[in-house]
């Protein structure tokens, strides 16, 4: 380690030299390898061992189960489509083939996301002469997990560039953004390239090698797309029953399908206290209540009649509630506000999804809406605190 440290110190570029970008990259790398031994000068003399790097890395770790499952599922869905795997047989057949196939599809997306995003971060760090901030570590992992596997690479790169520059850096960088960066990426893709982000053709990779052909009756539709057509019966018929939706071998965005994998991530976030349990819980409560309301008024509408629990296990709801709504920068910050914020997101997600089937991904829009409303919610909570303080003067 000593040798590495000496080597790094030797190649250190000057911060005010000809290549500020080189210094930003060096600084980012060096502080990643070594937590600098800065000591406290004023104020407290001792400090908690946690820092932003540790915090962000924990979120990335929490995303690993979703990532691994997503890779496997990409392969699984592909092999189902070409008929080499059959629903009903053990999902572990062709285990390594599926995983390898999926990994080859997903890894480039991760590389593009991190490459473009961190590139932008380094450039801005160099321009603003500040140290690189770790926010994108998480965004860069979230982005590949919330897009369809067949997203064209160039589109992903453009969307990431847009999200990091317009969604974050113009506001001042990490900690200052109003909207969740990963969701801005997804929203950009959704509205700029709708044909590649919705419909039945994008969720399963159907690149055919020579001699392969799609199985008869292959649709590629996501369970949500199917549910619009025929409610819970179609879900059960297309291998997306409640249990199967929880396990997650269903078409969808790469990381969102398995509620079990998401649950593992949620567990890590909750144990470490990094994700807000209030937001997670209230989002699920809000979604459940809204789905119940639809159940009551469903009548002949089969989509509205999909059981509430089943609704929450489909699409990006669980993923959004655990990893996106809980973003501490863009979410509500007061404890009371977090309840309102989560409920709003839960209700809106199901409302948009069910009331307007053209937008099956209501979760994305609901969280972005929640992000916009979060400061207002906090404002109301804090106003009441201020009022109480003023009341004290009057009654005294």
């Amino acid at each position, binding site marked *: 380690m000593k040798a590495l440290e000496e080597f790094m110190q030797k190649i250190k570029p000057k911060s005010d030299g000809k290549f500020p970008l080189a210094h930003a990259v060096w600084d980012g790398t060096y502080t990643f390898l070594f937590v600098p031994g800065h000591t406290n000068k004023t104020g407290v003399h001792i400090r908690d*061992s946690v820092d932003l790097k540790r915090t962000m890395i924990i979120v990335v770790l929490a995303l690993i189960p979703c990532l691994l499952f997503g890779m496997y599922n990409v392969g699984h869905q592909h092999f189902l489509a070409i008929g080499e795997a059959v629903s009903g047989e053990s999902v572990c057949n062709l285990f390594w083939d599926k995983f390898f196939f999926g990994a080859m599809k997903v890894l480039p997306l991760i590389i593009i996301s991190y490459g473009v995003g961190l590139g932008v971060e380094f450039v801005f760090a160099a321009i603003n002469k500040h140290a690189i901030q770790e926010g994108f570590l998480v965004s860069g992992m979230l982005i590949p997990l919330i897009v369809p596997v067949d997203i064209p690479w160039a589109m992903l790169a453009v969307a990431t560039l847009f999200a990091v520059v317009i969604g974050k850096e113009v506001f001042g960088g990490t900690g200052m953004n109003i909207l969740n960066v990963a969701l801005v990426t997804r929203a950009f893709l959704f509205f700029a390239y709708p044909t590649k982000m919705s419909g039945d053709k994008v969720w399963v990779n159907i690149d055919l090698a020579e001699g392969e052909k799609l199985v008869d009756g292959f649709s590629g539709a996501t369970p949500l797309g199917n549910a619009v057509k025929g409610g819970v019966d179609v879900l059960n018929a297309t291998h997306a029953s409640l249990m199967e939706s929880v396990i997650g071998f269903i078409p969808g965005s790469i990381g969102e399908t398995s509620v079990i994998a998401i649950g593992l991530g949620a567990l890590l976030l909750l144990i470490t206290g990094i994700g807000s349990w209030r937001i997670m819980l209230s989002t699920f409560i809000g979604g459940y209540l809204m789905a119940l309301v639809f159940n009551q008024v469903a009548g002949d509408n089969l989509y509205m009649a999909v059981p509430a629990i089943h609704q929450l296990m489909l699409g990006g709801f669980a993923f959004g509630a655990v990893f996106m709504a809980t973003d501490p920068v863009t*979410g509500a910050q007061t404890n009371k506000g977090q309840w309102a914020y989560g409920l709003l997101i839960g209700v809106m997600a199901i409302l948009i999804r069910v009331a307007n089937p053209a937008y099956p991904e209501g979760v994305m829009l609901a969280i972005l809406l929640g992000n916009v409303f979060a400061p207002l919610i906090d404002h109301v909570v804090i106003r009441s605190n201020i009022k109480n303080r003023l009341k004290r003067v009057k009654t005294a």
Partner: protein
Amino acid sequence: MSKDVKISKGVNIKLKGTAEKLYANPVSTSDIVIRPTDFPTLMPKLVVKVGDKVKVGSPLFYNKENDKVLFTSPIGGEVTEIKRGEKRRILEVRVKGDGADSYETFKQGDPNTLSKEEILENMLKSGVWPFVRQRPFDVIANPADEPKAIHITAIDTAPLSPDYGFIVHGQGAVFQTGLDALAKLTSGKVHLNITGDSNADEAFSGAKNVQINKISGPHPSGNVGVQVHHIDPVNKGEVVWVLRALDVLTIGKLFKEGKFDASRSIVMAGSKVKSPKYVKTIMGANVGDILKDNVEEGGRYISGNPLTGTKIPANGHLGFYDYQLTVIPEGGENRFMGWLPFIGFNGFSLSRTSFSFLSPNKEYDLDTNLNGEERAFVMTGQYEKVFPMDIYPVHLVKSMMIKDIDLMENLGVYEVAPEDFALCEYSCTSKIETQKVVREALDLVRKETA
């Protein structure tokens, strides 16, 4: 009518090097320094120059804003050095003791028989007045103010802090004299806030002429600002005076003996102190003399506790308000992948990202490393966990950063002191210098609203 206050938010950081409840041999030192920088916002005006002879209680400098507030010498001897910093700011006034105990004499007598004016004058002239501080702004109280109440904390909950009860034990009469003097200064109540977690010393529990409140819970429950907030909060336009119980002892001795007795018992603690104990010494004493042969190499010397104290050199001096001398390991080493959660460096964390949360009673040997670099605010909920007031700490700190005085007022700036934010600063993921932000904001609000 006493109040019981239970504080639930907060945490006691357990550090290695807690002092035994024993006194080491008293240390007398002839090298004394009074630092005007111990008093926030103070503009000192010197009345002595190098070479002047002073007695115990002779004025060294006074407050330019209020020339009645004198700062006097804790020792008799000669002024040997006046150290100045940038812009000729006075940093230190050094007095060399001559061994002869020559005292300035002040009024002696039972405060109950003295008038408010006589008590004020006695306290101002002798130099014990600066012990009386005020909320808002956490500065020395203005003797012309009419305080709504006076609060005295008899608890120190900071890491490695002294047990006030142990020090005050057996000095009940002196303590009571001090309380009687303070009681004359307000038309409101004098609150003595004692611990509710264990049995308080009889000097505290038997105090008269005051309202005794019981405070229980983890740090910062010992902070007088937190106590005031829960017992009788400060509103805009009101002033509350605050002291610590050990300060009251010095005031009591003034009225008992008619002299400024600056001797005090302090605690020497921290993992770098070989034998952590209590010791009798004097205000402003050279810590090199106090810790002679009792300290290991490579420590950071702190006058005060590790959360709010002042960094001093190894031959530095005890601060005016400090009853604690802490020596903890100095950091400065880079840590390879030190950010890794759960493995490797595993210092005490409030965030459950290291396994320290599984062993809350373990004592830690923390060094002075920042453990990261300063970042923008990202995490939420951390400050709130250790900030036991009905105030939104993050929003208040943010309003302080943007210097929005109206917003600060609304969010409760009049009730807080930097020390109340010490645990927030400790736990801050983004490594923000919270206490510094608060201090600067308080100074700004004080200046703008004056």
